């Protein structure tokens, strides 16, 4: 499994404060532990529940405001569960140069979502990102953490089918 935040809701556990406290304790002694903790929670539960904020604050001896401020600053962290699959579409310039804007309009229409939204059947959450380092083979996407280049509606559908298999 490459990296983190593959973000498949199907692979996520339901929120559980006790389990969360255990995860937090496992990282609490690291230098600057906030981000690793938030990543670990999101990896486990698919999002960071509001109940985690006081737990982290207590473990790190920081204020709740500091943890809340951190949680809301970064684009990666979600406060609610996402759909079964997470599609991150690159909106940056090199992908724009090969028609990403028009493609994104098609994708959003096809799955009937707005940015950050989840399709009504709960299958797909679509999120914008700025550059995936796949700029020579755009339009680019990450589908559940796996890169897809030269994206169009068909390759996206194929990637989602492959991920579901």
């Amino acid at each position: 499994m490459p990296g983190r935040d593959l973000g498949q809701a199907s692979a996520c556990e339901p929120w559980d404060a006790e389990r969360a406290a255990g995860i937090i304790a496992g990282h609490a002694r690291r230098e600057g532990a906030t981000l690793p903790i938030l990543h670990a929670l999101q990896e486990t539960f698919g999002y960071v529940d509001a109940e985690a904020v006081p737990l982290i604050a207590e473990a790190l001896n920081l204020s709740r405001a500091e943890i809340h401020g951190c949680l809301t600053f970064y684009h990666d962290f979600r406060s609610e569960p996402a759909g079964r699959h997470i599609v991150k579409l690159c909106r940056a310039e090199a992908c724009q140069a090969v028609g990403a804007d028009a493609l994104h309009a098609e994708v959003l229409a096809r799955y009937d979502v707005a940015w950050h939204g989840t399709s009504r059947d709960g299958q797909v959450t679509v999120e914008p990102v700025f550059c995936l380092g796949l700029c020579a083979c755009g339009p680019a996407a990450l589908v559940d953490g796996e890169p897809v280049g030269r994206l169009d509606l068909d390759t996206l559908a194929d990637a989602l089918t492959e991920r579901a298999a």
Partner: protein
Amino acid sequence: MSITLYLPKDAASLALGADRVAKALGRAAAARGLDVTLVRTGSRGLLWLEPLLEVATPAGRIAYGPVRPGDIESLLDAGLAEGGAHRLRIGRPEEHPYLARQQRLTFGRCGIVDPASVEDYRAHGGYRGLEAALAAGPAGIVEAVKSSGLRGRGGAGFPTGIKWNTVMLAAADQKYVVCNADEGDSGTFADRMLMEGDPLTLIEGMTIAAVAVGATRGYIYCRSEYPHAFAALNTAIAAAERAGTLGADVMGSGRAFHLEARLGAGAYICGEETSLLESLEGKRGIVRAKPPIPALKGLFGQPTLVNNVLSFAAVPWILEHGGPAYAAYGMGRSLGTLPIQLAGNVRRGGLIETAFGLTLREVIEEIGGGTASGRPVRAVQVGGPLGAYFPESLFDTPLDYEAFAAKKGLLGHGGIVVFDDTVDLARQARFAFEFCAAESCGKCTPCRIGAVRGLETIDKVIAGESPRENLALVTDLCEVMTDGSLCAMGGLTPVPVMSALTHFPEDFSGRGARLPLAAE
């Protein structure tokens, strides 16, 4: 008979189907009873040929690409094992014109070695730089880096040797070495390719830095958009620790260097070094006012060396071959090699490492082969989202920090994004503001408010609403942002905006809203 094949697992190669090719190979080999060893490498950077499959032959490696899963049977029939003829056959990669004109110092091993193997790394010359560094000692290392002329590859081009000297001379019980692997600029992917294809070079460079400045701890701050690079780093760090080239006793020198890869969380501003340090400390990534500079008061208030991936990765070569050998490449005050990243609407996109000094035209036309769409090139953005849009009349600018600055552009991290004649520069200017509004850290008013106001005003221009007055307002806003912003996020957003306005005024003439603004 046993065959050794090489196939990248670089993210771009995966994005174009490398894993499906690997599976097809596995199936075909099993069906034919072939004994195949498949080594997963990084990419050579000829990205339009990915997935690029190579086979070891007595005459060296022979490459085929771009390979689709359906090509495997015919490749095997054609005598893949012996490098046989096939319509996808490229020949020896080193002899391909794209690679043959490059000077690969930093990327010399990328695409060739197994990125997870210390043994393979050593077999290809790895750790000679670190050995030389341990023999030279801190002052000797800093002298080598100074004499190489190396300037920070993260964008600003600050002399690396001077920064190392400052941290070396700072007195503290704990110092840190931090690698900026946030690579947020559109059109850049060299950091990612190096981390995936040859992470041990970065690790070796950071270890040399740690020896030079007297640091025992280091972090690589890797952006979360790069999950494969993050995984490759962790694998390589563990391998280096097992081999004793990293950890409590680096190569038996008695020096300790503990390195950890940390994941960012999707914030462009965390590429700015002080925001990055805040983020590493577990806080919101908000820019710190300088001074104090991180070299004196950085991570957790301690002296900290912050460099880009490519700056660290250039160092092993410099220590092995000497500073003057590196300085022999390049032009003016831009010395050594620049990993150029060619992307966007271009026929042959990829990674090109050469000495500074090629012109933009040579890169786009000769190396890149013009646009992928076959239409004329109209604009090129160099240096990421804060870089200028250049028209054709500026294509003879050489890739050199000063030459770009003279044309009100910036070279940045060496990313070149090509647009054909369907581009609308008013929309690109609009995007520059939109991006700044989305990614601003919010600390200072010119950037936080200016970007939002700029976006609204450009929208009026695009809608044909008093274009002249509104463009004057945009220009005014840009001046305020340039002069009043705390960091280069707000300070440089005017660069793409004003370059679009200056070089492509016809796109701003207020012909009414032509296209729906899809993004909102």
